């Protein structure tokens, strides 16, 4: 396996980690106004992700940095091409990050309400836009012979990409919900239990629509994956179905594990569908960005591989430790920092 392939895999892993972790904290943010009636409820909800959300977000920064280092042409074309979508995402993420820290530092109900809405919008918008971005990457975007994106922002808002966005929102919301079922106490827990069926159903329906539409709108299923989409895609589908059953049985730990599998394997399916392209051109297949024409030099890839091998395991250990340390359920008796 060459270094370009290794780096494609590493970036797929980074995005899987990002969607796995930030996926549930976006979901928690999206559920905030629906599950938190009183200020105290909302504080409990926010505190379930209190120690984690910032570390989760670093997965996105690392994925972005790795993309820049390993595939600079991909980074340059994607970021300048999806400009307005990324601008909206950045505005949402900036506000969201500040909102977590600021919302409980003043007692004024208006202040808190305002920042709570910012947490909601700041979680919803990135979840939606990441879906839109992935949808467009699968579908292909107008890229010319010089690797320049020549489409428009509204071109990115095509029905397939928007459906992908909605599917992302629904799956992240379900993932966030199963996280909350594990991590929060009453009265929020009771409310969370009451909406599981609805949220699960919405996620399944949107995911199915996304796959069906994907067969028509893109060639990733037909060309790369074939009529038999392969075990990775099947595991993703199976996991979300099993999650539904586990939720009915009230086995929330396993349900969370299953939504996690859904998120990871859906992400991997998308990357497998893309390989060896990183950004297909809808104008001319020859103009697509690939893991070869978009990559850094072999020397840089080698340096980055050494760095990744040394430090990714270390990060996994201490981040995993922080999840273990803060595994307790947040109840009304818990001292709340946020």
């Amino acid at each position, binding site marked *: 396996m060459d270094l370009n392939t290794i780096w494609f895999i590493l970036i797929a892993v980074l995005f899987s980690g990002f969607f796995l972790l930030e996926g549930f904290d976006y979901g928690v943010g999206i559920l905030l106004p629906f599950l938190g009636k009183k200020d105290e409820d909302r504080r409990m909800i926010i505190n379930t992700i*209190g*120690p*984690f959300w*910032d*570390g989760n*977000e*670093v997965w996105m*920064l*690392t994925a*972005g*940095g*790795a*993309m*820049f*280092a*390993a595939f*600079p*042409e991909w*980074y*340059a*074309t*994607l*970021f*300048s*091409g999806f*400009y*307005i979508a*990324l*601008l909206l995402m*950045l*505005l949402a*993420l*900036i*506000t969201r*990050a*500040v909102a*977590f*820290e*600021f919302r409980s*530092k*003043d007692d004024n109900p208006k202040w808190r309400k305002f920042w709570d809405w910012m947490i909601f919008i700041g979680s919803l918008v990135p979840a939606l836009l990441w879906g839109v971005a992935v949808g467009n990457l699968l579908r292909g975007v107008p890229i010319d012979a010089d*690797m*320049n994106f*020549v489409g428009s922002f509204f071109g990115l808002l095509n029905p397939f990409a928007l459906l992908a966005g909605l599917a992302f929102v629904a799956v992240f919301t379900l993932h966030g919900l199963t996280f909350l079922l594990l991590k929060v106490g009453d009265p929020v827990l009771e409310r969370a239990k009451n909406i599981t069926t609805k949220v699960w159903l919405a996620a399944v329906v949107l995911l199915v629509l996304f796959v069906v539409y994907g067969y028509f709108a893109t060639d990733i299923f037909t060309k790369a994956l074939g009529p038999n989409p392969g075990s990775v895609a099947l595991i993703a589908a199976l996991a979300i179905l099993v999650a539904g059953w586990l939720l009915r049985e009230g086995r929330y730990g396993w349900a969370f594990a299953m939504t996690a599998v859904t998120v990871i394997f859906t992400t991997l399916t998308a990357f497998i569908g893309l390989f060896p392209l990183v950004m297909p051109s809808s104008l001319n297949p020859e103009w697509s960005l690939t893991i070869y024409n978009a990559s*850094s*030099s072999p*020397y*840089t890839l080698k*340096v*980055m591989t050494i*760095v990744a091998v040394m*430090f990714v395991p270390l*990060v996994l250990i*201490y*981040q995993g430790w*922080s999840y273990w*340390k*803060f595994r307790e359920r947040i109840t009304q008796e818990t*001292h709340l*920092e946020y």
Partner: protein
Amino acid sequence: MDALLLARLQFAIVTVYHFFFVPLTLGLSVLVAIMETAYVRTGNEMYKRMTKFFGTLFLINFAIGVATGIVQEFQFGMNWSEYSRFVGDIFGVPLAIEALLAFFMESVFLGIWVFGWEKLSKKAHLAAIWLVALGSNLSAFWILVANSWMQEPVGFHLQNGRAEMTDFLAVATNTHLLHQFPHVIFSAMATAGITVVAVSAWHLLRKKTDHELFTQSFKMGLIYAFIGALLVGTSGHTQAQHMVEAQPMKMAAAEALWDTEQPAALSLFTIGDLAQTKDVFSIRMPTLLSFLSCNNFTCEVEGINNLQAQYEQQYGPGDYVPPVFISYWTFRLMVGIGSLMIALLLYSLYLVWRKKPLPSHSKFLLIMVWAFALPYLANSFGWIFTEVGRQPWIVFGLMKTEQGVSNTVPAGTVLLSLISYTLLYAALMVADAYLLVKYARKDPEPAADAEAPALSSPSITGVEGV
């Protein structure tokens, strides 16, 4: 306005804004860690309250630093995609390493620190804040690896129409970096130290306050700031000497030195005619610039006009002079404000050394309250100087700024994002200032979980109800 100008304006605004918060994060993470170390070593509850008090300010500030940092990483691709294509092989590496080594460390351990007061042993909790401090300062190192490469490209060759890395170690030990990193770290120490001094001074001006705690934090902040401010000066001096060799045009612009002089005079105040590239009015100290540049009074310092002629031969026709007015004045303001900081800190040290009770010097304390603004101004002027002084280059000697801008992003789009960031940042600045002032003026929380009944302790009998 064209997309280039708008993209440059945007970079200036978001970067200066981001770096308004970052030095405090860098410096205060260490200072708060020192406070908590004092608590763990002495068991004195006062240090715990001090840690929590300044820790809260740290967190409010940290949030904005983190949030605005995301834009920093994304905007190279968004506004400067041609630059990203040209340098990605080198420039992306420190950015990725920064995220992997530093961002994870600081954010994960900050979460552990904030939420772990009850859950961790004292020592483990202390380790968490030291790891936050280490992570923050490591992130400064790696982003300066990236910036230093723009100032002084090393360890590369030009191939496949781009700069490709040939020597990672050379990039990570760039001479420019070895001067710039300490300069930034020491300025962060000065920033955090003076901020702690200013907040403490404000509290000491009140009658009812925890005098013991804030006298102690005043002293700690003072020593920390003084060490920082002094070393900013010395590291700045060696950095400038290196600049004379590596980026002589930047130095010439900083001094408004039009023509090569031997020995060169130091400008104290110059009004120049920028079109004619000569002085209209100037006070200059003979031979002093030579001394500052190379430690002797006779060496030659190259002037703007001579360098322009030399660069035209080397790089072809073009204007290689950075904006002299901005370079000259930002350099002076940075150095001037830094010197003022040192003077104020020296006088504070004198008061502390003479064991004068601080609250009796109310006028001076009031000055120190307002002195909080000085390091922020100096930091901003410093960055504006070093980035503007590099112009017209985005990577010195390799790529001009105008070549680096995204060629597919229309000016209207850049304008839209410029306006969005500016408005959002302005709103956040208001919210942040509101919270910082609110928490800076609050009394430290009483030692509620201490064994001793808190209110009988003499040091906090003056504390108002919280």
